[in-house]
């Protein structure tokens, strides 16, 4: 029986591999690196915009302007649309692609709300609900989540109500404060070294925004507002809530997991009581902006351990013809400081940018999440990032380099250094066909502890990736990707191949995925996984094996969709292993 099962599986894979019509899809969000995925709030914003609105309007532009990955230029275009100015977006390819992805067909439906319910089946079941409604001048959002094995249906829940009144924009409930360049308060996701990072690092925060993500401890909960004055604008927020985590000396260690299953996790649930107040003043002047941020927080855990932190920051940006510069400097009452500065030169299709940052060891503000290399905040860092972007005819080239160094802590401590660089080329020989090649080099020194002395090591890793995307017809997209990851000075590499396919058949759509990888030297390979709409999942191969996945979408009416995904992975090359099967279903409804 098992032999027959294996034969059938192998036969299915062979047919899948050699059938030229069975490959894959590509979507807007998949242009991002699977090793640096987008924040969940971005996916929810795109889902809501795609469901509630039918085209780019001032209302939808306002919602889209909250996306984390937009550049300053893209934001400026959206701002113009918010103000009601007629502006052509075709000059900005990415914004044009975004609108085409969100609104592929023109409709005149009057939709006042959208809801999605996702059921994610793995070892147990995870449930997610998200809803957003436009009720006259009010914008209401709801979010609920139950992770696998949690007892409470709504283990995490949040809501926000947002409204405008005269020059005020109020948010009650869960909100986030995006100020300056992230040294004091930012999103739950930081900017990371990658292609296009200069544009992300240049982007300044836009004050109070509703919080839509499932990150359980990141949101402020209380009252926030944006207010326009004659000489500038002010954003302020007051928050009081309980967060998961612990107080460690002169900082808060916030838990990112949000899972409450084990006794320790349940005990740690809402361990810290937090009160935060924050204000941000920003003034525009000719060709530039200046801002000041002042905030403070008080934390107390269940054992009455207390911590207070005050923080101030000033930032600014200036543009002179083709050159733009920005900087932010922040100081805390724990005598910690951080600074980030950057410059960008842009002329026609050529762009060069650099970003320098220096972050003290144990730097902690309120919700700081600035552009940094190491996630571990114990390690301060000093870094220089450079990027070059250019277009040569049909070829788009992007090169970046980031050199970073850990700041010295105790006397005699090992100075950790590293660098990353990458080359990305996109070639579009004709409409519908796109060839995308990238090479990434990463080198971080690490310390191995010995009896007599510590040994310093450095193993550079090089990643090669080539992706061919082909829109064969209006209803059929194909994608093929080859991946190779090599540990320098080692003859064995990790190899991977992915074939994807997407068919659109009226009210039905079908996506199929096949990936196979050979893993050597523990060099993991990352791919975009089969996803439900507005979901981002990566499939990580840490062992040699195969993966097959399918996504089926059905649109019973113009206001509703049902999507299902199924996948099976084998962590053995010869299939002689019980596959890991995963499934999920999502129902999107609009009213």
């Amino acid at each position, binding site marked *: 029986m098992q032999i027959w099962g294996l034969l059938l599986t192998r036969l299915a894979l062979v047919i899948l591999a050699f059938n030229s019509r069975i490959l894959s899809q590509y979507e807007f969000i998949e242009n991002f690196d699977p090793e640096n995925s987008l924040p969940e709030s971005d996916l929810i914003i795109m889902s809501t915009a795609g469901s509630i609105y039918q085209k780019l309007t001032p209302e939808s532009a306002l919602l889209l302007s909250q996306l984390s990955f937009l550049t300053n230029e893209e934001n400026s275009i959206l701002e113009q649309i918010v103000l009601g100015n007629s502006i052509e977006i075709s000059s900005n390819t990415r914004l044009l692609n975004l609108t085409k992805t969100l609104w592929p067909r023109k409709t005149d439906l009057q939709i006042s709300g959208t809801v999605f319910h996702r059921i994610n089946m793995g070892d147990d079941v995870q449930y997610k609900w998200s809803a957003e409604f436009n009720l006259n001048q009010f914008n209401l959002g709801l979010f609920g989540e*139950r992770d696998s094995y949690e007892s409470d249906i709504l283990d995490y829940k949040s809501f926000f109500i947002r409204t405008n009144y005269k020059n005020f924009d109020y948010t009650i409930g869960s909100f986030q404060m995006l100020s300056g360049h992230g040294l004091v308060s930012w999103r739950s996701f930081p900017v990371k070294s990658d292609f296009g990072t200069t544009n992300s690092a240049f982007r300044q925060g836009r004050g109070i925004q509703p919080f839509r993500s499932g990150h359980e401890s990141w949101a402020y909960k209380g009252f926030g507002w944006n207010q326009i004055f004659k000489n500038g604008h002010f954003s302020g927020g007051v928050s009081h809530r309980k967060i998961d985590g612990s107080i460690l000396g002169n900082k808060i260690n916030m838990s990112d997991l949000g899972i409450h299953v084990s006794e320790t996790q349940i005990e740690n649930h809402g361990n810290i009581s937090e009160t935060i107040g924050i204000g941000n003043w920003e003034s525009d002047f000719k060709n530039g902006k200046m801002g000041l941020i002042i905030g403070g927080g008080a934390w107390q855990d269940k054992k009455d351990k207390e911590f207070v932190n005050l923080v101030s920051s000033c930032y600014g940006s200036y543009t002179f013809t083709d050159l733009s510069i920005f900087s932010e400097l922040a100081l805390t009452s724990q005598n910690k400081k951080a600074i980030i500065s950057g410059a960008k030169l842009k002329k026609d299709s050529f762009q060069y940018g650099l970003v320098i940052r220096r972050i003290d060891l144990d730097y902690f503000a309120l919700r700081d999440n600035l552009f940094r290399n190491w996630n571990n905040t114990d390690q301060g860092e000093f870094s220089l990032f450079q990027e070059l972007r250019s277009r040569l005819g049909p070829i788009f080239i992007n090169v970046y380099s980031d050199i970073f160094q850990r700041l010295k802590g105790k006397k005699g401590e090992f100075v950790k250094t590293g660098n990353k660089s990458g080359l990305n080329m996109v070639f579009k020989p004709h409409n519908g066909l796109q060839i995308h090649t990238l090479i990434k080099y990463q080198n971080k020194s690490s310390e191995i502890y010995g009896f007599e002395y510590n040994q310093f090591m450095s193993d550079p890793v090089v990643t090669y990736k080539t992706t061919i995307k082909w829109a064969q017809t209006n209803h059929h997209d194909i994608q093929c990707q080859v991946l190779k990851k090599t540990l320098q000075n080692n003859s064995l590499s990790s190899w991977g191949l992915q074939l994807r396919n997407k068919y659109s058949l009226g009210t039905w759509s079908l996506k199929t995925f096949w990936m196979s990888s050979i893993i050597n030297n523990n060099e993991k390979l990352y791919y975009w996984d089969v996803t439900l709409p507005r979901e981002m999942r990566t499939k990580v191969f840490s062992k040699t094996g195969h993966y097959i996945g399918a996504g089926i979408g059905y649109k019973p009416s113009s206001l509703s969709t049902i999507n299902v995904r199924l996948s099976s992975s084998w962590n053995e090359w010869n299939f002689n292993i019980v596959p890991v099967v995963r499934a999920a279903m999502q129902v999107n409804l609009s009213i």
Partner: protein
Amino acid sequence: MVNFSFLRHTILVVLINGMTLFPPNYLYAAFDSNILSPIQNAAGAFPFSVYGNSLSSISDPSNLTSTQPLFGAGAISRKFGLRDLTESIIFVGSHYKDLGIGLGLAKFGNETYKETTLSISATNNIKDLLMVGLSFQFYQLNILNYGQDNSFGFKLSARYKMNAKLEALMSILNAHGPVIGQSKENLPQVISGGLLMKPSPKITGQVSFSHDTDFPISTRFGVIWEPVNHFHIAIGKVNQPNIFTTGGMFTFKNFRIEIGYLSYANLGLVTYQTGISYTRL
């Protein structure tokens, strides 16, 4: 000659009553019995109400409408055929202004151990697409010689008409985490969802799940078919626990008589359920 049937029933009664009366520290599984009508049980223990079946409104009020005429319904069952595990439900419904409203009472157990659930339901229709039902539940647990305790819960149900033949359904029960008794026993928190299909006027199909968060998810499917006028046949399957279900419904003017049969494959036990309702739809 030993009467094995009697012996088996006696052992089961002793075991069940022993668990409820002499728990080591606290109660287990209070109010875990699903309150479903016979036809819902027959069609694969479908956790949502079916149109034309007023008795199912107690489990999910989202089939009540703002023009709902007064109706009454009742059902009785003996789980595994045991008198001590008798469950009875009664439900009346009508409308008030733009709301469909209902009042239900469910009882489970015997004189020694008794669970009573009183539910008050209201349903609103939004844009002829979405039916949202909210049901407040009053729970009372009564154990002879030990006393009684009360608790409150709520159930939120939603029914969305995707098109003329397909509905999506979702409900959550006790999301606020209510407890009952001195030992603060958690009342069940249940997430349910499903699709209700009507490919032809005579056939209704369902695919659904019900997930009590303290137990593995239970997936269900079933079909109700009306081969001749007034007679409905239902068949279904529940996974976790493994139950084969079947039954039927007979309608005569405004009266409906329902029968449900559940065969527990792993236990080798069966449950019969009968119900009657007077509905004007």
